[in-house]
C-alpha cells in the first residue's frame, strides 16, 4: 500500500505504526507521530494499523527560537 510519510508518497509493507518506526530505526529515540492529523501516543503505535493513503507525520525537536 501507499502512504504519505512526512509528505512523501511511499510504498510500505508495515502493518502498524510501530513496525514503521522500527523500520526507520527511530525506536528508542525522541519523536512523535501523527496519523491523518491525529496524535498517536507512543503506547498505541503497535495497536494502530496503517491504511492505504494514510498521511503520517513523524516529528522531532530541532533548533529554533
Amino acid at each position, binding site marked *: 500500500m501507499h502512504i504519505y*510519510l*512526512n*509528505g*512523501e508518497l511511499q510504498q510500505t509493507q508495515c502493518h502498524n505504526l510501530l513496525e514503521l518506526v522500527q523500520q*526507520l*530505526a*527511530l525506536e528508542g*529515540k*525522541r*519523536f*512523535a*507521530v*501523527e496519523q491523518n*492529523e491525529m*496524535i498517536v*501516543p*507512543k503506547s498505541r503505535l503497535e495497536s494502530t494499523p496503517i491504511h492505504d493513503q494514510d498521511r503520517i*507525520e*513523524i*516529528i*522531532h*525537536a*530541532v*533548533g*529554533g*527560537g
Partner: protein
Amino acid sequence: MEDTLLKIGSRTFNSRLLVGTGKYKDLQETDLAIQASGAEIVTVAIRRVNIGQHPDQPNLLSVIPPEKYTILPNTAGCFDANSAVRTCMLARELLDGHNLVKLEVLGDEKTLYPNITETLKAARTLIDDGFEIMVYTSDDPIVAQELESMGCVAIMPLGSLIGSGLGILNPHTISIIKENAKVPVLVDAGVGTASDAAIAMELGCDGVLMNTAIAAAQNPVLMASAMRKAVEAGREAYLAGRMPRKRMANASSPETGYFFK
C-alpha cells in the same frame, strides 16, 4: 537584595533569560552558548524527522536534556491556528506530556509579525486542552490584556521584528503592557545586543527571550555571557529604582567649603 523567583504558570525559575537553539554553527556551539547564558528555559522548533537520515546523527535534545532544562517548544513557521495547535499537540507527545509551549502564529513571511486573530483562536483551543501558553504577540496593550484574560501564563510582546536586532522600538507600550499585567511579561524578539536586554529589564519586564542576538554574534558564547549579565543588571537596576530624570545639572560634589573662591 534577594530577587523573587520568576513564576510562569506552575513552574518557577531563577534565570530571567530565555534562549533559543536556532542558527548555531553546530550542537557544540549551541551547548556552550546555552551554558554561558545561564538560561533554564530553552526553546526548540518542531519539524519533520529526515527520513533516511543517518540514525546516529546527534540529537538536539541530547544537548539540552529535558531533565536539566525546561524545554519550550515553539510554533514557529505556523501561519494559522490549526497548524499551531497541531504543533503543540505533537510537542506534548514528543516531551511526554510536557504542557508548556510558546505560541506564535505569524502573519506574513516578510515581517513574521504575529497574526493576532489566529493567535487568539489557537490560544483558546490550547488552553481548553490543558496547555500553559507563553504567547508571542504584538506590543498592543489591549491584545495583551485579552490574551491574559483568556488564561495565557506569560505575555511576550515583540521588541522589534523577529531576527531584526533592532532593539526595543516602543518601550512605552511595553511598559504599559507590563503595568497592566498580572502574569509575567517577557520581551520576545528584536534584541540585538546586551543593552537592549538591559532596557527590557529596566522597563520592569519579567524576562527576555532571544535567539539570533546570541547565535548570530561573531562570538556567540561570549554574547551569551553578556546577555546573562545584561538581564541581571537590568533587573537589579529596575529593583533599585532609577533616579529621576532632570533637565539641568545637579552637582555631585559639595557646593560649599571651596578654598578657591
